[in-house]
């Protein structure tokens, strides 16, 4: 990947560990490099260590072990206010006793900018987030979305090269979240800022980022662009965490290059792509996306293994149909099909056969 070598990395975590109590590690041996201008999202469930990583980068937590580099220089001993990193908080953290313009002016004042220059920059930053008319308001007079725009403008007004965002859209409703997701990515790319974004919302991570680091248990489980992450999860945690996913457990029966055959616990045999399995007899959890399941036999490869399935429920969702099946004893097996003119609408009780392309079904760690 371009720029991912440690030499031209803008942000680098090198063997970083963090412990709060001296007994357990919240962050375990973290290695991560980011090129300049990248939008990287740290995604993970709560307690996975992603926010701790962000706080270490911002300087509010110190690494127990390891080195954090910014533009090639170690920053472990630099206090937060000298790091020059912009930050957006989940609760916005707009200062309630100052007006919007005063909030934006604050980072410029502490940097000793002149009055006219400050006003100029504040005006430009407010226009950038389409809040030009709100300079005289107090934060409490703004809606959540407006407050977040101001928080964003405040983090950008002093033109930092790195901006950190800690679940900035967590408190907003869905529609506003989507608008702001788009706006944040647009701003970040237009201004060429390097961004580290923390969220537990996988849709947000997929739609916004250049690369996503999936955190669990203090480690990065997978670091990849969104499409790779979704289509080629490296392990069952990533597969489960990103998107909807059908899983079945079994034993590897045969490996032939890029494909393998898995015997499920119920005795059925399926095709899969070996990802985290290396030898015959190993236990595995196979994972298949609901939209990659096929029940039109003509679209399957000749000789492909199929499974018997019974339709339990059919849900009309507008753009897609969501069908719940009983497959190999699993009653939560979901198939998603596009609402196209020639699409079949399955009925509950119907008996069908399903299959898939071997590369869509990934045999992962058990």
């Amino acid at each position, binding site marked *: 990947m371009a720029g991912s070598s440690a030499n031209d990395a803008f942000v680098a975590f090198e063997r970083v560990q963090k412990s709060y109590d001296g007994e357990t590690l919240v962050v375990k041996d973290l290695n991560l490099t980011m090129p300049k201008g990248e939008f990287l999202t740290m995604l993970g469930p709560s307690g996975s260590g992603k926010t701790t990583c962000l706080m270490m980068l*911002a*300087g*509010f937590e110190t690494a127990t072990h390891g080195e954090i580099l910014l533009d090639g220089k170690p920053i472990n001993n630099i*206090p*937060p*206010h*000298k*790091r*020059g*990193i*912009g*930050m957006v*908080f*989940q*609760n916005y*953290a707009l*200062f*309630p*006793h100052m007006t919007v313009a005063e909030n934006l002016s*604050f*980072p410029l004042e*502490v*940097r000793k900018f002149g009055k006219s220059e400050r006003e100029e920059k504040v005006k430009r930053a407010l226009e950038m987030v389409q809040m030009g008319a709100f300079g005289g308001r107090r934060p409490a007079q703004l809606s959540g979305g407006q407050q977040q725009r101001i928080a964003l403008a*405040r*983090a950008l007004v*002093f033109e930092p090269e790195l901006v*950190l965002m800690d679940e900035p859209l967590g408190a907003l409703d869905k529609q506003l979240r989507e608008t702001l997701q788009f706006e944040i990515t647009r701003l970040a790319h237009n201004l060429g800022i390097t961004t580290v974004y923390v969220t537990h919302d996988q849709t947000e991570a997929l739609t916004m980022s250049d690369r996503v680091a999936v955190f669990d248990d203090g480690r990065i489980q997978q670091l990849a662009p969104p499409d790779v992450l979704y289509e080629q999860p490296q392990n069952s945690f990533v597969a489960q965490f990103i998107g909807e996913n059908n899983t079945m457990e079994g034993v590897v029966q045969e490996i032939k290059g890029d494909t393998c055959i898995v015997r499920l616990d119920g005795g059925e045999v399926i095709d899969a792509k070996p990802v985290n399995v290396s030898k015959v007899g190993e236990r595995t959890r196979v994972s298949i996306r609901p939209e990659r399941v096929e029940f039109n036999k003509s679209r399957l490869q000749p000789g492909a293994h199929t499974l018997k399935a019974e339709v339990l429920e059919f849900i009309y969702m507008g753009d897609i149909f969501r069908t719940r099946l009983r497959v190999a004893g699993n009653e939560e097996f979901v198939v998603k099909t596009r609402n196209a003119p020639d699409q079949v609408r399955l009925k509950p009780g119907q008996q069908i056969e399903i299959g898939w392309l071997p590369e869509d079904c990934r045999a992962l760690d058990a």
Partner: protein
Amino acid sequence: MSDATLDGPVLSADGKPLKQSLNLALRRQKIRALILIAPLLVFVLVTFVAPIGSMLMRSVQNTAGTDYIPDLMPNVVVAIEAWDPASGEAPPEDVYRAMAIDMATAFESKSHTQLGRRFNYEAPGISSLFRKSGRPASSWDIETDGPFKEKFLDIDSGWGNIEYWAAIKANSGYYTSSYFLAAFDAQRGVDGISMKEPDQRIYQKLMLRTLGLSLLITFCTLALGYPVAWLLADLPLRTSNLLLILVLLPFWTSLLVRTSAWKILLQEQGVINNFWIALGFTERLSLINNQLGVIIAMTHILLPFMILPLYSVMKTIPPSYLRAAKSLGASNWTAFWRVYFPQTTAGIGAGALLVFILAVGYFITPELVGGADGTFISNRIYFQFAVSGNWGLAAALGTLMLVVVLILYYVYDKLVGVDNVKLG
């Protein structure tokens, strides 16, 4: 069905006007609420509002004992009307005659000494005239024994003193301003109202001292309490609860005990002084029976009243504000001063108001550790009330104190805004 199509008032389902139904529904709630608070309301009125009101009234009521002066001396009050103290002459015979009548009546009801005491507040020395004259006057025959001027002067030549008579004339109404004049360190002489000599203006001095020391104590509690409150607000709940109990601990001990404890610690042969000597110093410090003692003890006693409102306000300030300020480039001090401190002003306001008002009215602590130059106005009020029995002056001083505090509260409201004050 739509109400909007109807002309006239909106009706409820049973045809009554909606407003009437609403009022009826609300009235029941209001009555129920009133019944619930009635016991407290009555209690407050009977034990708080009424006594204070009657006490404040005493500052202007012109009474001796329980009776008004004009009721005790009806003849003198009328007769003395025509006399002008500025003339430089003692009152005419008819005033003495009236005094003889009223003195005899007062002697019957044993109230002539109370009259004497009342006028003694205005003209020191007059009480002995009343005391001496009661019995003789009761034996005089009003019709035949005149002229009474000589008779009074025979009993005591003081009855010829114009100043005494001026004091009687000035306080012959049902209401009097003399208590308030005294409270303002003013006096009424033969030639009108004037301030007392500067070295006799004790109430002015006491009032300024009370306000000044209270202000100083408020600043001390703020300086000591602010960091503590911040620490409490910043710590994890378990630890902060424990520390909060330590802050509240003094509340569970009697005020008297705490003040006495300070006496033991601070006195000449006390713990701190002994330690001081043990360190090798030869002079003992005088830490008590002066203003320093009052400041130390009252700062300690009032500290929780500062810490608690500060704590409750600081508790509501998320730590992300300080982090945001630092991430924006503010040093620790700038972040504190520009971002944290302004958000705590509501707590500072509440704490300062609470401590100041409590301090201004403090009594026990200045009484016990204040010595001669550390007493407050409240100690003087107590003295007038309980020792010299001058309830009128005590009431006037109390009223004055109340007015001063109300004025300060008003100024404070204009400067800080009481709406901004948060107690929690």
